C-alpha cells in the first residue's frame, strides 16, 4: 500500500458515497413520512455536527473556549445579528479566551 493508493481509494470511496445518495429514487421522498424523516435528518445531523465540533477532540469530550464562543453565537442569533458577523464573533471570542487564559 502506498500513500497514493490510499489517497485515490479513499477519495473514490467518498465520491461513490456522495453519488449513491443521488441514486436513491426520488419517489421515496414523496410520501409524508419519508419526507418528514428527511427534514428531521438534516436537523439531527446538523445538531450532532455542532455538538461534535464544539465538544469533541478526537475521541474525547473537552470543554474549552468553543463552548462560550458558541453561547455567544446563540445569543447573537437570537438578536438576529447577520450570519457572517455571528461566525466572526464566535472565532473572536474563542481566540480571545485562548489568548487570555
Amino acid at each position, binding site marked *: 500500500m502506498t500513500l497514493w493508493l490510499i489517497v*485515490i481509494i479513499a477519495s473514490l470511496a467518498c465520491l461513490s458515497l456522495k453519488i449513491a445518495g443521488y441514486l436513491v429514487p426520488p419517489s421515496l421522498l414523496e410520501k409524508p413520512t419519508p419526507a418528514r424523516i428527511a427534514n428531521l*435528518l438534516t436537523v*439531527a445531523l446538523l445538531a450532532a455536527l455542532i455538538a461534535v465540533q464544539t465538544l469533541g477532540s478526537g475521541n474525547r469530550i473537552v470543554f474549552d473556549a468553543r463552548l462560550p464562543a458558541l453561547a455567544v453565537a446563540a445569543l447573537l442569533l437570537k438578536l438576529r445579528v447577520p450570519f457572517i458577523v455571528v*461566525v466572526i464573533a464566535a472565532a473572536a471570542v474563542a481566540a480571545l479566551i485562548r489568548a487570555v487564559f
Partner: protein
Amino acid sequence: MARTEPGPSDDEQAADDQADDDQRASRVSRWNTDDRAAARKGVAVGLAAAAYGISYGALAVAAGLDVWQTCVMSLLMFTGGSQFALVGIIATGGVAAGPAAIASAAILGIRNGVYGIRVAPIIGAGRWRRFAAAWVTIDESSAVATTQPTLRSQRIGFWVAAFSVFIGWNLTSLVGALIGNALGDVRVYGLDAAAAAAFLGLLWPRLRQVQTIAVAAAAAVIAAATTPVLIPGLPVLVAGIVAIIVGGFNWFVSPDPQPEPPGIPT
C-alpha cells in the same frame, strides 16, 4: 421610450431599447431577497470552511503526504471531515495504517450520501448536473440548501456554497501545504468555534417546532455521549437515527404546528 415621430430607423431603435430594457429587467428581477440571502449564506459558509483548508494542508504535509497528494484529496475527496481523519491516522500510523485511514474516511463520508438523498430533489434533473452536485454535496452546501425557504433560493444557496467552499478549500489546502507548520495551531484563531457557529446559524431558523427542537437536542446529546465510545464519524450517524425514529413515529407533534420552511419541493 418616448418617440416624437416614429420612422423605420426609430422603430428599430425602439425595438432594440425595449429588448435592452427587457434584458435588464429580467437580470434585476432574477434574484429576489431570499435568493440574495441564500447567496450571502453560501459565501459566508464558504469563507469559514476555506479557513480550515490551511490547517488541513499543513496537517497533511506534516503527516507525510506531498503537496500533490494533499491537493488531489481536496479536489477528489472534497469533504473536510474525511480528509482530516485520513491525514490524522496516517500521521500516527504511517502507510501501514492505510486501511484504517480509508475506512475512517469512508465512514465519515457516509453522511454526504445521506445529504445527497435530501438534496437531490432540489438539484433537479440532468445527469452531469447531478454528478457535479454529488461531487460538492458536503456539510456546508447541504446545510445552506436545506435551510432556505424557496426552491430557487435552495438551489442558489447550494451552488453558491458549493462553489465558494470548492474554490476556497482547494486554494487554502494548497497554501497550507506550502507554508506547512508556519501557521501554528489554528485554534489560536478560534476557527474551530467559527465552524460550530456556522452550523448553528444554519440550524437556527429551523428550531421553531417542538418536534425539530426535540430532535436537535436529542441528536446533540447522543452525538456527544457516543463520541468517547465510537470511532470518529459514527456518533454523527448514530444521532441521525433519532431523526428516523421521531420522524417515523411522528412524536412531539405540536397541536398547532407553524409552517416549516418547505423542505422538499412538491
